[in-house]
């Protein structure tokens, strides 16, 4: 199975790298932000300019993701956040690719901006603290945490 691992370059990437042993034997590639850290990422990757809160950059990111997914044709898109996952999962939904969103380990009692949106889009929506099941609702599932 080919899996697109989509996440921003800080803590979300640290969480993803912690989970990566789960995908041993699968074909994985990263879509993440440009930074000194990701330049040296030891996995196949595509680097995108940080979106932050800029809607124009969100559009640019969407077009880049279309081109990346067109080229790679992943079977599954998995994300640990943050907003870089929004265009990727919207696109995946439209073209029928399976999506798994994992809310960050740092979310214990409040929703993230990205989680708030992707709750309605992701095929599987996982939280890392049981308390978060109530915060999100029926679709959310707790299957353990990164630690």
């Amino acid at each position: 199975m080919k899996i697109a691992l989509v996440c921003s370059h800080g803590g979300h990437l640290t969480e993803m790298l912690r989970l990566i042993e789960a995908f041993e034997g699968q074909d994985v590639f990263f879509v993440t932000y440009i930074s000194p850290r990701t330049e040296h990422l030891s996995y196949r990757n595509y680097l995108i300019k940080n979106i932050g809160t800029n809607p124009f950059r969100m559009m640019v990111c969407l077009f880049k993701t279309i081109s990346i997914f067109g080229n790679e044709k992943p079977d599954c898109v998995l994300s640990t956040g943050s907003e870089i996952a929004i265009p990727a999962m919207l696109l995946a939904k439209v073209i029928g690719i399976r999506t798994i969103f994992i809310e960050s380990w740092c979310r214990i009692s409040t929703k993230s901006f990205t989680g708030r949106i992707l709750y309605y889009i992701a095929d599987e929506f996982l939280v890392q603290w049981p308390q978060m099941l109530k915060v999100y609702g029926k679709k959310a599932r707790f299957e353990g945490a990164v630690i």
Partner: protein
Amino acid sequence: MIFVTVGMHYQGFERLIKMMDEIALELDEKVVMQIGHTKYEPINADWFRFIKKDEVIKDLINKSRLIIAHGGAGTILTILLERKPMIIVPRLKKFEEHFDDQQIELAEVLVNFNGVSVIYDVDYLKEEITRLGKNTNIHFEIRADLIHYLRRTVGE
């Protein structure tokens, strides 16, 4: 050695870095700081902004007896996995260290574990560094069930 780290967040953490620079002068111990986007540049401690390889941060954590960290999930996760005692200083919105106060959430849960302290007012930081002696062990059970779950579900 004490290692101070503020992660990759786009805002600086002036309050912590300035205070640690003052404290470093009074300590009988080497202090190394990763200052990220903080404008203030320390005088009394070794410092750098970012590192290119994650292994370098892990190595610094391992060499230290105590880590002073911002409240970011990635930073705290890395320290817990290395089983090192830490003082968490959450970034606060009112000092323009973060866009919200989300770092408090994780800190409030982790403060219940032995070997983890949380400081909100940096005026108390030196006292806490002294209080956390040289033999503090961290007690945190590592389960990582999510890794096993993902291996099963993605392998299907």
